[in-house]
């Protein structure tokens, strides 16, 4: 494990919510992530950008151990949530994933009603004492996701019958419902039209401060709009990490500059 290349301290003085140190990820014999270290702060949105296949999604999935579901994947290095190593044997994956929620590239509501989609997480984790409690959680989550006004009269309808943008906001509401501390978003807008994308971006901005948010995107404008920190990935390595404003205006690495100015991607 290599801890020598700790990233330069940036931003506020409060301790980081999650830290990654010397992370390597292998798929079988192929190495997808090479020795990446960075910090994620609780009150900021962190964006991972880079060309397709650069490993940014793979790296994201290390933060809630979703790589465990891939048989051939192997993760080395250290990732901490509030000073606890999430890859330690004592770490409980179920709890970890309740604390670190995730929103996927394609909206994936369960083929259940809108209400049941939101209630799913609180129910399996036993977060609601009774029906009133659960109703409160469902309403609160939908409100926070900005979906309440649109769906409050049809909570019994299937989640799969909504539009793509609504589905994705439903998935965000579903993640919020278990009251996580971190939300991982894996290209949440790539399957959506521009108007739906704008609504999701507003929502992300709205959620900032309440949750630490990591968003993977291949859309640089989006990263510039929603994030405070940006990490640029290329070929499995993290090329550059820093304040979003700095990365987009004055990148220190030539490769970052080439990517941002559209030389490749």
């Amino acid at each position, binding site marked *: 494990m290599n801890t020598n290349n700790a990233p330069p301290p940036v931003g506020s003085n409060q301790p980081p919510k999650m830290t990654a140190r010397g992370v390597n990820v292998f798929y079988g014999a192929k190495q997808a992530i090479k020795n990446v270290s960075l910090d994620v702060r609780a009150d900021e949105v962190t964006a991972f950008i880079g060309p397709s296949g650069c490993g940014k999604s793979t790296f994201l999935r290390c933060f809630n151990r979703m790589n465990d579901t891939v048989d051939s994947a192997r993760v080395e290095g250290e990732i901490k949530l509030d000073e606890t190593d999430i890859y330690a044997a004592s770490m409980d994956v*179920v709890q970890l994933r309740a604390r670190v929620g995730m929103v996927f590239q394609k909206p994936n509501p369960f083929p259940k009603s809108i209400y049941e989609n939101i209630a799913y997480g609180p129910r399996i*984790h036993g977060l609601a004492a009774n029906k009133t409690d659960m109703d409160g959680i469902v309403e609160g989550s939908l409100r926070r996701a900005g979906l309440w006004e649109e769906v409050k009269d049809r909570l019994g309808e299937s989640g799969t019958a909504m539009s793509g943008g609504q589905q994705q906001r439903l998935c965000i509401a*579903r*993640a919020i419902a*278990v009251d996580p501390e971190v939300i991982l978003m894996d290209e949440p807008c790539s399957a959506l039209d521009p108007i739906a994308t704008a609504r999701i971006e507003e929502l992300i901005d709205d959620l900032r401060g309440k949750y630490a948010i990591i968003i993977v995107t291949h859309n640089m404008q989006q990263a510039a709009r929603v994030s405070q920190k940006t990490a640029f990935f290329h070929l499995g390595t993290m090329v550059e990490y820093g304040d979003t404003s700095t990365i987009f205006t004055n990148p220190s690495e030539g490769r970052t500059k080439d990517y941002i100015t559209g030389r490749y991607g």
Partner: protein
Amino acid sequence: MSLTILFLAAFGLALVGFQIGRARGRTLVATSGIAAGTAARARIGAVHSRPNYHGSFVALLALAPALVVLLGWSFISEGVLTDSVLASVPAAERPETSLDRTSFMNEVRGLAAGEIDEPFDLATIPASRVYAATQTNYNMLAGAVAATLAALGGFWAYSRLTPQFRARNRVEVAVRWGLMLASLVAILTTLGIVLSLIFESLRFFQMVSPIEFLFGTRWSPQTAIRADQVGSSGAFGAVPLFWGTIFIGAIIAMLVAIPLGLMSAIYLTQYAKPSVRKVLKPILELLAGVPTVVYGFFAALTVAPRVRDFAVWLGMSDASSESALAAGVVMGVMIIPFVSSMADDALNAVPGSMRDGSLAMGATPSETVKRVLLPAALPGIVGGILLAVSRAIGETMIVVMAAGLAANLTINPFDSVTTVTTQIVALLTGDQEFDSPKTLSAFALGLVLFGITLVLNIYALAVVKKYREAYD
């Protein structure tokens, strides 16, 4: 001259036609006025088709009429020969039942072919001479007709060959027709099944009322040969058969197959490592490849006595050695791989993003299976189970060997029950009189079985198809 030789001769004639046609085609190419050194561009189109197509065209036109004649003859020849042989036998020695006729004709054929030296029935010796003579005459006639038609077809085809003649197109049209005819065999088979079942069933329902058949509760089809014999009136109430079929195939077998098959599929798709899956899946496939007669033998010889011992131990001193339970359990085992593979397909059709979504919420794999995957896969699984039921109620050998013939209307799994398929086999083996209700009732049972499995299959396939489309 046997039919096999006639067929071979027809193909030989076609081969000759092919050679002649191809030679003609080559001559056309050589004489079409193009020197060997001419550019390829000029050669294309001078003679429309390649020589092989000219050959095939001639061969096809020679072969097709000959084959039609020979095939037609081979289908009816045994019937014609049997009639003329039987007509030659003095009325007193003529066999009466169809079974006697069959064995009589077998001896006649054996004698004619020189495989039997001494027949049991001496009347077959002159009959066999008639058989041999008639066969030779008719085969010669059929062969002559076929050869004439082949020659006519071949000559006509040969006369059409010119450089401009589109032999390839003609041959390809013929090939297309052949392919289409092949696909019609499926319809003909379905039609054959439906018509023969309906036709024979109608004859049955002229003797026994459909109401009695469908709703009667007493089944005892042993009609007497002589009218004064005891129990000469058969009873054809098929309800006990339907119940036995459902009891064994749709209840007991499914109680075994659904939990085991479903849990196996869940374990294989959700938990097993690829290396484990590689070992376990072929084992399930092997279970599916065991012939049903083996399961039947296993049920009758190994499982049934144990079930009986168990029933005696429970206090049923008169327990039957042929029980619904033994047949049903073994049939359930037979169905496990079927249910498992249907459930496997259904679970795999659920998009991986559902599973990821649930796991990312912090659900355990079993919670994901129970609350997300199974509800999402339910239509596919239900469709698969319906197909499994349809297969179980149509299964024959296990119940023939282990379930028995007693038509009981019982819910005691240790009792003997009988099924539709068991009765069909029992009714159609041994002496067959094609005008007795006993034999014909087998076709009525077959019609019911066909109808029920057809409805189940169509419905289940529609459910499965709709379910697949929902996730595409």
